[in-house]
């Protein structure tokens, strides 16, 4: 049931990243095609988040290459402000801008960075808000919202830039358990619409439901790339078996 096309959006070759001499990502190779949903799993501190941060230019890489649409992202003259409009990212912390209302949060980027037409942006923002069930909160301030609501708004805010790829960095990790579902539902909806996504998560059943491809990472390199059903029923790497056993209770 592979639904990705053959058009390659992102190509990571032999990526190497270190913090103060300690390697965090090593010999990392990954290809993401348009429409594909890649879920990155692995123990804490294995480099999953760093991977997403490298793709979005929040961390400088030390070796190897990341290519977006065949354009290398390690060149000195890379315009990250331009690239980041195509590669959206949502973080673990609900990092809405506290001094702005929901609708202002969502439309700030499209209006100020992309200089788009205001009525068109407002219309799109409202459609997206409607889709995540929060249209009635458009004039609320972030402090008036629950964690799950804030995280859904953060997703809408990234989507309103019309990105081609979305990166999700443990977006449900600091949510109360009963709010995790509403956020995952939004992401699953996106996947079904064909959004290309790279998701770092610890929600195993969600990973299995949403992924086209599971990438299991340990100690900064890929141990296994496989189909989700294969991975969860019959993991090949020994480290992956141990990892999955932790989640059996």
């Amino acid at each position: 049931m592979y639904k990705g096309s053959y058009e390659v959006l992102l190509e990571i070759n032999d990526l190497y990243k270190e913090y103060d001499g300690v390697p965090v990502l090593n010999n990392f190779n990954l290809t993401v095609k348009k429409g594909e949903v890649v879920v990155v799993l692995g123990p804490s501190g294995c480099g999953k988040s760093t991977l997403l941060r490298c793709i979005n230019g929040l961390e400088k890489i030390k070796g190897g290459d990341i290519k977006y649409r065949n354009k290398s992202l390690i060149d000195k003259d890379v315009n990250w402000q331009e690239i980041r409009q195509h590669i959206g990212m949502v973080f673990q912390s609900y990092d809405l801008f506290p001094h702005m209302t929901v609708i202002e949060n969502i439309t700030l980027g499209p209006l100020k960075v992309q200089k788009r037409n205001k009525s068109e942006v407002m219309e799109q923002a409202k459609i997206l808000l409607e889709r995540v069930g929060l249209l009635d909160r458009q004039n609320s301030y972030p402090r008036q919202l629950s964690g799950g609501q804030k995280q859904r708004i953060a997703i809408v805010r990234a989507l309103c830039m019309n990105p081609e790829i979305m990166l999700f960095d443990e977006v449900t990790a600091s949510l109360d358990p009963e709010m995790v579902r509403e956020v995952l539902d939004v992401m699953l909806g996106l996947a079904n619409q064909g959004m290309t996504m790279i998701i770092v998560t610890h929600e195993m059943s969600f990973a299995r439901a949403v992924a086209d491809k599971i990438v299991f990472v340990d100690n900064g390199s890929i141990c296994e790339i496989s189909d989700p059903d294969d991975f969860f029923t019959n993991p090949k790497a020994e480290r992956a078996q141990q990892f999955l056993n932790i989640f059996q209770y």
Partner: protein
Amino acid sequence: MQNLGINVLFKGSNMLRIAEGLFVTAKIAFISIAIGSLLGIVLGVIWTCKSKWIRLLCRIYLEAFRIIPILVWLFIFYFGITAELDIHLSGEITSVIVFTLWGIAEMGDIVRGALESLPKHQIESGKALGFNMRRLYLYILIPQAIRRMLPGVINLATRMVKTTSLVILIGVTDVIKVGQQIVELSRLEVPTASFWVYGFIFLLYFIICYPLSLLSKRLENKWIG
């Protein structure tokens, strides 16, 4: 009828002169606060850069105004620099220059503190939306920092208003100097003149500074509440 001390205030053109003196005080204070705040924001933004040398330079600038009394700065500019460069600066201009430089330094430190207290995630989520540094500061960081730094700014403004009383020492006739002149002229006639005149000036300072405190309280409630 016994001569009431309070009448000193209304004798001749005394009230008008006090008003003129108050205007000088207010002018020096508010020009310095206004320019100091604006340029202080610029300094604060520069201060948050990564360069160790620029940060050190900003620090030295601030400490120079913290360690050396403002009175000494007034003397340095009024007597020292004017003589050295062979130019003439009026007392008022000198006062505005010194108070502005002081305001920029203190304001820069307040802005730096407020910017650095913002969560790092605010910067990253702004960057992830394609903001460049200029837009990041303009739309996301500075508006949030302003809310956080309000108490410090109001405190600075009232301190600056009060410290303008030093300008009489470089020959500026501010509200206190006018008061002094009136008291000296009428001391023989009205022995309690100093109580009434200085008491009235006390009230005037209160009238200038208290609205600032009120304003800050109101804005804080509106933004943070």
